[in-house]
């Protein structure tokens, strides 16, 4: 299941997400991917060449509000970036939980 990081405020979530974005760019570059203005350029799956006109990855996550009024982003746990969780826990205040089934009001 997906792990998420829950923050008390939107600003805290945004700050942590920005920290993740800052470490992601050099990580991707280290893997041989092209990063332009902090945005990850995808490769064509058939040719393995950069798709410069394709949708780029612009951020790790977009903070979302919980039903309780807190804010969350997807955790790095279980991803290639998981080792960075140690630094994130030291520098940011959040709770890491399994994504709840918030459901949603269906029509």
């Amino acid at each position: 299941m997906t792990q998420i990081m829950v923050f008390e405020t939107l600003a805290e979530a945004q700050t942590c997400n920005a920290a993740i974005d800052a470490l992601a760019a050099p990580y991707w570059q280290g893997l041989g991917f092209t990063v332009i203005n902090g945005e990850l350029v995808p490769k064509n799956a058939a040719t393995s060449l950069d798709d410069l006109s394709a949708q780029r990855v612009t951020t790790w996550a977009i903070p979302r509000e919980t039903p309780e009024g807190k804010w969350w982003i997807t955790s790095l746990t279980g991803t290639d970036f998981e080792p960075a969780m140690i630094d994130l826990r030291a520098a940011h205040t959040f709770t890491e939980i399994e994504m709840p089934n918030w459901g949603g009001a269906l029509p």
Partner: protein
Amino acid sequence: MQMRNLAFRGLRLPRLGAMRGGGGAVAPLPDIASAVYWGDASDASTISATSGKVSEWRDRNGGTNKFVQGTAASRPETGTQTINGLNALQFTGGVVSLESPNFMSTSTHTLMFVIEAPDDDWILMAPPAGGQAILVSMSGNTFPPNTNIGSAITSVGGVNLSPDTRVGLEAATTGSVCIAMVENANMSNLSSFVLGEWTPGAALSYRGKLGSFVAMIAPTTAEKNTVGNYLSAQWGAAWVDRA
């Protein structure tokens, strides 16, 4: 030698991309005038990705419509799952989704999906306030297969659901590759189409494979059957011609 013979007879060969990744497509891609998007996960040339995560899924017919995801944590997977030996996109629930702004919003569409979602059903729905139409999985509830998209008709493998309920859907789709079709889906007043996510909770996001997604505007019955039979041969899913 066989290839030369085919070419000699003037037959169209399938696009190279469609042949990558294993079994499946052997027939030429049909020319469907009503198709406004044809997503084919087995055609690697239509996918842009990094480390197996999809940022863009383009129209196999070369049109400008496409599905995109610019948020790293929300990208579906490619290269990890197959249907009938062909690459399929894998949606893992949560916030994973692909979105196409604008192109679905103008008309009534017929939508065809090649899906394998072992543990869940799927539905296509739009929130009451408009905004998006969304493919999601459903489990543990009684909502109908399609909600808030007008007088849509749901079929699996060309056969209308009976009963046209989640129970009927579950009986028709659980644990098998299927061609799901939604006819007369009213996309008016919608700003985008999302494959995968309704809400981030586990119950309302799509968890499963997606091989193809074809969107058509006012297709003829012949066109629906042409697409259905093509997808059936490609992905190994059942199809019965619509009358």
